[in-house]
């Protein structure tokens, strides 16, 4: 029995045991055993994925109810990479859940659904044919919907979020089902190897791929099918949010890579252009919404849309450049996509887990009421800070390496030989640059408002550091963010392998494109070495050197500060008024809303902002007693896209009510008419 097969069977067995244990154990035992089993499932998945990633093979065939229809699971290198990703996030989320899952999030139902959700996710990544993929996809969709609804009895908004989520996730399933059905019938088989034989420019292939891409970006949470994401992520329990945002959304990304890179790498360039457009819109819209969001978890959810947008931009640009003949740049872009995926998974799992810790410590998600948590929750603050650096794409984190690689590759795409491609990549560069700037602002806001300054409410003032398991999960995740950022070489090499692109050439181009990913050396005499000969002309960035420089700068700044402090002893500043800089009251600080005000003013129309100021005056008109300010940011896609659609559907439903008025004769007449029509058709 090969290692991969053993690993797959272990994952399957452990997940089933965890589901049974979640249902059978009492509350106290469940709280200890279920997270442990969850972490074991994750660890087994990491092991299996690592084996598959490094070239191991193994196959598990599962029978279905239908005779002759089986589902085969056999991860390849790309699937192995995603198995590692999902497994790693599962381990973090499960460890966090030792302390973090409480109340309804630790109910019997939730602990049954959790391992099944993970199992479905892993199955998607490991599937080797259409049936296996769809089976796992549906398990993942249903189990995650159950988890989103965990707290439905206490908070009515959870029910709305759950309905939106269930609707969109089933829409995604139907689109994927339809797409695979078209492809499988055209190919005459359901295995990946059958689908890979399709002619990429045939009409049926185009239709199938179009459906699939639409279904996958729905799962990935890209604009305009993102509406479930800012609802479901905030309302789900925090470890589930982390798993959904860091791992489940990546199932959509995996699907896109599966179709565009692995099965049909020679597709026409419109696939890539479509992904590029969707990705650009998602990146800009997502980060704009995140920038103005005042709810911490909603901010993180919209930031997920932004990151998925960047990944889709990378994949789309890679597809276009490859289709137009610039294969090397295409490969670098693919590597950038995978780096982005892993960087985002690490950062976002930490961000959601620490946001959950903040929610436990303060009972608040509203940034406008938080503040000053850095002093009371130093561990959570540190982990959140590192992950926020990563999500904003700043140096010494994984996000920086990935975004820098993406930017450099985009800048070098096209060139004078292909002006049209150059135009496309220039536009993409603009999008990425704008997104990066706004992301910096967004995460400055999230970190600064929540952890610095002074508490803005009693809940924030009474905060306390959370339990050991929560801190451990956050710290390990933060270390992963730093590690991927400081030593990206092994990860880049592994990404090259996972994508099956020509390793040496791609690494050489990566070098020429401006990021020195340590550990990847061009083979002698290859195109990579030739490229590295010209590396002197291109500014090359070494993340490790950058990290050392940052450390040196930090030491210098700390030294200067310490010296200044020693020279000028602390004085108490007592000012009777606030304009001298002393924040005499917490209410004089920036809030999340006021910090984002410039952004709201610039992007008023695309954000759909409505605000109202109500002034209560005393007897005289200039004596103001109280003022209240209310601002609402709407989702324009939901307002102008989904609401009219839902209203139209409701109207059709109302019209359908005329068909059944409660009279038994009406019902019998319908079935009689149907019977006669069917009889007539059968006798034809």
């Amino acid at each position: 029995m090969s290692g991969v097969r053993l690993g797959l069977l272990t994952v399957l067995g452990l997940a089933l045991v965890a589901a049974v244990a979640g249902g059978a154990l009492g509350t106290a035992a469940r709280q200890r055993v279920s997270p442990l089993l969850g972490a074991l499932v994750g660890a087994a998945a990491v092991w299996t994925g690592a084996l598959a990633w490094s070239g191991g093979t193994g196959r598990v065939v599962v029978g279905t109810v239908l005779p002759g229809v089986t589902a085969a699971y056999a991860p390849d290198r790309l699937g192995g990479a995603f198995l590692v990703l999902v497994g790693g996030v599962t381990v973090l989320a499960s460890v966090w859940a030792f302390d973090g899952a409480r109340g309804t999030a630790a109910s019997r139902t939730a602990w049954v659904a959790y391992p099944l959700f993970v199992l479905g996710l892993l199955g998607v990544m490991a599937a080797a044919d259409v049936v296996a993929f769809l089976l796992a996809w549906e398990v993942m969709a249903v189990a995650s919907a159950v988890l989103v609804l965990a707290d439905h009895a206490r908070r009515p908004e959870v029910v709305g979020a759950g309905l939106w989520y269930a609707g969109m996730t089933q829409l995604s399933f139907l689109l994927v089902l339809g797409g695979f059905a078209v492809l499988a019938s055209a190919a005459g088989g359901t295995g990946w190897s059958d689908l890979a034989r399709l002619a990429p420019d045939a009409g049926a292939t185009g239709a199938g791929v179009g459906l699939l891409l639409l279904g996958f970006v729905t799962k990935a949470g890209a604009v305009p099918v993102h509406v479930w994401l800012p609802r479901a992520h905030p309302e789900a329990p925090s470890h589930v949010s982390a798993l959904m945002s860091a791992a489940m959304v990546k199932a959509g990304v995996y699907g896109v890579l599966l179709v565009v890179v692995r099965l049909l790498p020679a597709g026409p360039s419109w696939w890539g252009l479509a992904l590029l457009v969707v990705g650009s819109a998602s990146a800009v819209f997502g980060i704009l919404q995140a920038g103005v969001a005042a709810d911490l978890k909603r901010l993180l959810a919209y930031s997920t849309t932004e990151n998925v947008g960047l990944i889709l931009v990378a994949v789309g640009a890679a597809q276009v450049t490859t289709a137009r003949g610039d294969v090397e740049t295409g490969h670098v872009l693919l590597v950038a996509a995978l780096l982005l995926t892993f960087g985002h998974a690490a950062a976002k799992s930490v961000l959601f887990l620490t946001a959950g810790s903040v929610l436990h410590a303060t009972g608040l998600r509203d940034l406008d009421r938080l503040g000053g948590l850095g002093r009371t929750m130093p561990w959570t603050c540190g982990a959140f800070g590192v992950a926020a650096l990563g999500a904003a794409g700043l140096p010494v984190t994984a996000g920086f390496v990935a975004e820098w690689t993406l930017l450099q590759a985009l800048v070098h795409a096209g060139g004078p030989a292909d002006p049209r491609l150059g135009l496309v990549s220039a536009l993409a560069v603009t999008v990425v640059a704008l997104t990066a700037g706004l992301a910096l602002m967004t995460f400055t806001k999230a970190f600064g408002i929540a952890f610095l300054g002074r508490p803005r409410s009693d809940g924030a003032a009474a905060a306390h550091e959370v339990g050991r398991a929560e801190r451990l999960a956050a710290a390990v995740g933060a270390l992963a963010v730093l590690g991927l950022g400081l030593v990206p070489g092994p990860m880049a090499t592994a990404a090259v392998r996972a994508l099956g692109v020509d390793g040496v050439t791609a690494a050489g181009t990566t070098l020429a494109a401006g990021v020195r990913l340590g550990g990847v050396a061009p083979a002698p005499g290859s195109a990579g070495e030739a490229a590295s000969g010209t590396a002197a002309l291109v500014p090359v960035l070494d993340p490790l050197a950058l990290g050392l420089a940052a450390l040196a700068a930090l030491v210098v700044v700390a030294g200067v500060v310490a010296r200044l402090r020693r020279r000028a002893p602390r004085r108490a500043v007592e000012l009777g008024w606030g304009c001298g800089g002393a924040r005499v009251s917490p209410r004089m600080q920036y809030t999340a809303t006021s910090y984002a005000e410039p952004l709201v003013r610039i992007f008023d129309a695309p954000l759909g902002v409505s605000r109202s100021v109500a002034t209560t005056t005393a007897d005289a008109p200039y004596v103001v007693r109280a003022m209240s300010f209310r601002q609402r940011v709407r989702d324009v896609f939901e307002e102008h896209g989904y609401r009219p659609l839902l209203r139209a559907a409701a109207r059709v439903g109302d019209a359908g009510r005329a068909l059944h008025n409660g009279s038994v004769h009406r019902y019998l007449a319908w079935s009689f008419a149907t019977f006669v029509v069917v009889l007539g058709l059968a006798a034809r």
Partner: protein
Amino acid sequence: MSSGDASQAVALLAGLELLTAVLLAWRGPASSPRGPLAVQGFALAGLVAVIGVAEGEPVLWLVALLVGVLKGVVLPTLVVRRPSRAAGPAAPPAADRPATVRPVVRPAVVRGRSRVPLLLGAAGLVVVAYLAARPVTRVVTGATGQALPVGFALVLVGFALLATGRRSQSQLVGFLVLDNGIATTAFLATGGVPLVVELGVSLDVLLVVLVLQVLGSRIDTAFGAGAPGGTDLDQLRELHD
């Protein structure tokens, strides 16, 4: 019995079934459906017996006996049976009824609807049945094949009665005609149904009629049976969750 005689007998009995079905469609609200239903049931039983003789299968005689008793005697009697107040548990006096249930007093003589559309419709359905049965009659040869469209026609006419009947009783009648049609088709198409199958089907029909009869009686006691044949079902159309 020669094959010619058998063919004649089958045609005669099938024709009798069709005639009674049309009679049932034509009957006014005041007339009892018992007679035509009984004739139809006996005709069906006769059909089974003739097939049994022609095919030389004694088991079919037993089936014929069962069908005759059930469809010729038991079911028609059940359909017309009115719930006897004396036999059952004493009906609650009017004062004890919940205030929300108000007995509806209807005139004893109900203005019948015109039967002409239904008769014309039945004729059309018979034509449809003959057209629809063509693919089957092409396959089923012999004495029984020619009469097969009658089974289809009975099904269609029965379904039409079921869908248009205003009272629970006329719907029951439609249901029985429909079932007779299915049985006729089955016997004619396969040349006899095994005893076990026929037993199962007969028990099912008996049960359905019993349940519907009880249900109809309950409705009548709750809303008041103003007319012969039970409550006007068009009045029961409020949907509740």
